[in-house]
């Protein structure tokens, strides 16, 4: 202890603390941990090391992929992140379509983007809610889930299920957009737009929340790149990267939207990115329902295989695609494909290797939260114990998605 630092200007990391070491097992039965255990090594109030003991909700998707055929995998791959299931589904189908060489009609492309953006809003609201309850802000938690309910209701009308949508199939989508759903979406957008100022007053601009998030878990641009951060966490650190811009899939090359990037790299910037993305997503959805072209929602290759009587009964009257028998068990050609989509939490990568049999030889699924594990461990080092949950929440780390 030589020169005393200025007590009023120093931050948490500069304080000399008499070493009092101890370990805390946060989770998996801990109210703030979710489905993982965080082994925290404390020195006073400062975390020396946080080790993530993951795997409590491991579903071994990659192993099961070896014994399931391609259609069976659609519900399986979306299970790890049911609140982001459209993206999980979409990434897998993109890889599969690359191997099969299927062209997707325009209308289906737009519908994919539509469902994905609705899902992105729902997922961001969920993430904000979880962050809020980690900070003790129970209203943010309930509001996140309450507002998400509106979008889930829209998704349910579109796909027929609340979260496990299984909406996207090879060659297209399963159900068409109807005027009723269009109207629902317009109302939902208007509702959400009205809600955002309220959110700002009670949560985002609340001095209490700002104090908890500003300068917490700061990740510089270089660190974000080195640690391989993804999605809003990466963009919160000032890196301009979004798969929707760099490798447009679905209808994104025809849509006009911005990618919010923040410079600061702290938890508050990450929350801001999410809020701005909700606004951007609503803009995208508005464009889609205005510009969506007419046409089929399934690739002609499969569409022709559906018997005309069934088409008439289901597609022409209810806008519902029924499957040709081909889907029950098909063999794509030999080959491999790698696809990436921008899921709500970040970049989602699928690597699919087909040996010509009805089952994939190898499916590799790298989810955004999986890539956040390392980021989380690094960010927690040197943080205060109370900030552990703030960092956890602001990274939007979702244990089942990481475990797969």
């Amino acid at each position: 202890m030589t020169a005393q630092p200025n007590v009023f200007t120093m931050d948490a990391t500069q304080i000399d603390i008499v070493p009092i070491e101890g370990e805390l097992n946060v989770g998996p039965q801990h109210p703030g941990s979710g489905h993982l255990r965080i082994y925290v090594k404390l020195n006073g109030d400062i975390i020396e090391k946080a080790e993530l003991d993951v795997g409590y909700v491991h579903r071994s998707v990659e192993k099961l992929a070896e014994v399931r055929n391609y259609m069976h995998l659609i519900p399986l791959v979306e299970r790890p992140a049911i609140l982001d299931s459209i993206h999980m589904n979409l990434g897998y189908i993109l890889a599969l379509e690359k191997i099969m060489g299927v062209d997707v009609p325009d209308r289906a492309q737009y519908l994919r983007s539509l469902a994905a953006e609705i899902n992105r809003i729902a997922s961001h609201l969920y993430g904000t809610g979880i962050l809020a309850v980690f900070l003790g802000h129970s209203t943010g938690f309930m509001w996140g889930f309450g507002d998400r309910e509106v979008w889930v209701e829209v998704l349910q009308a579109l796909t027929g299920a609340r979260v496990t949508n299984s909406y996207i199939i090879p060659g297209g989508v399963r159900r068409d957009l109807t005027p009723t759903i269009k109207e629902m979406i317009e109302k939902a957008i208007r509702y959400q737009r009205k809600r955002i100022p309220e959110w700002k007053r009670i949560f985002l601009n609340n001095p209490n929340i700002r104090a908890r998030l500003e300068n917490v878990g700061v990740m510089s641009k270089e660190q974000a790149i080195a640690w391989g951060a993804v999605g809003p966490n990466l963009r919160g650190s000032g890196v301009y990267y979004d798969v929707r811009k760099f490798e447009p899939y679905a209808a994104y090359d025809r849509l006009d939207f911005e990618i919010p990037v923040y410079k600061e790299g702290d938890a508050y910037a990450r929350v801001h990115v999410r809020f701005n993305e909700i606004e951007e997503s609503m803009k995208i959805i508005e464009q889609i329902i205005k510009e969506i072209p007419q046409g089929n929602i399934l690739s002609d290759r499969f569409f022709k295989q559906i018997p005309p009587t069934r088409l008439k009964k289901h597609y022409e009257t209810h806008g519902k695609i029924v499957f040709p028998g081909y889907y029950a068990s098909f063999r794509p050609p030999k080959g491999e494909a790698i696809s990436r989509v921008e899921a709500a939490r970040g970049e989602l990568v699928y690597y699919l290797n087909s040996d010509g049999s009805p089952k994939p030889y190898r499916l590799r699924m790298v989810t955004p939260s999986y890539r956040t594990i390392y980021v989380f461990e690094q960010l927690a080092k040197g943080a205060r114990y109370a900030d552990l949950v703030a960092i956890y929440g602001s990274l939007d780390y979702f244990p089942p998605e990481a475990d797969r």
Partner: protein
Amino acid sequence: MMDILQDIKYVIFYPSFFVMIIFPGLIAGGLFVLFAIWFERKIAARVQMRVGPYYVSRFGGIAQLLADAIRVALQEIIIPAGVNPTLYVIAPIFPLLFAFLPLAFLPIGVIPEQGSVFSAYYHSFFDPGVNMGVIAALPTEYSLIAVLAVEAAYPIFIILQAWATNNRFALVGAVREAYLSVAYDVLILMSVIATAVEYHTLDVAKVVQSGIPGIVANPLAAFVFFVGLIMATSRFPFEIVEAESELVTGPATEYSGLLFLLAMGGSYFGTYVYALYFAAVFLGGWYPLSGFPGAVILFLKAAVIVLFSVFLRSVYGRYRIDQALRNSWRLLLPVALASIVLGIVGGWLWIR
């Protein structure tokens, strides 16, 4: 026969007994705390797009809390291995006790010489400061400070409780309580000193009888005291000691059953007693009424404070411990100092 009734009436309305046990003490306080928790859940539910307690009883689930309290009280009490069982069992009683005891010094009304049920005790509870009797369990001329002196013992027993449970989460919570108490005690004490200087007295009854509510005479002190109140009783946004997402339930982590009820009840009783004190010093207390109606007025004012402080749960998250400390020393301490200056000026120019 009449004599016995008269005797019973004398005993019941004997201020020491009446204040501590009946009103606003144990019975009224206990019921009010249950109501406050119900209100906390119900108002949070309204803000949060939910319904809240609904099924138990017909009036918005108002008996839900009673049902919950009975359920928790009847749960098995588990005493962990490796603790001192005696200490473990008695530890949660102390915080509750020391949250409640300061009420003894707090006057809740004045006794007119005639016309009130309390008039019989006019002479034995005479306060020369206000030239009237006061309804207080232990009337003293130093009640402004005496209440705080007893209340200051509260955090020590929280630490004892955590120590007795031998749990790391509890210990971290206890350390936070220790740090926090350093911050809020200073604030509360300074705002009270400001008031004392302004009113030239250490007697709550005299402050009230002056007829000027503290919040008018010294709004800064009232604000600082209110923040200190929230901090001292672990209400949001200073619910740092029990921080659920970090520390499970802080010092109460290991407790179950009736002991859990006791361990958690302390902070609500603390809020209640502090609110009574706040209502007396800063909100004009019972003035201009006297006797029992005055006490009811005081109680209602305190109720508003308690309900507002539990309502804050639906607006705020919790601060970090270092932020709470820094804010209290950096932002509120200057305000508290200003309130003392204001107190001196006000006491010099206005209140004689």
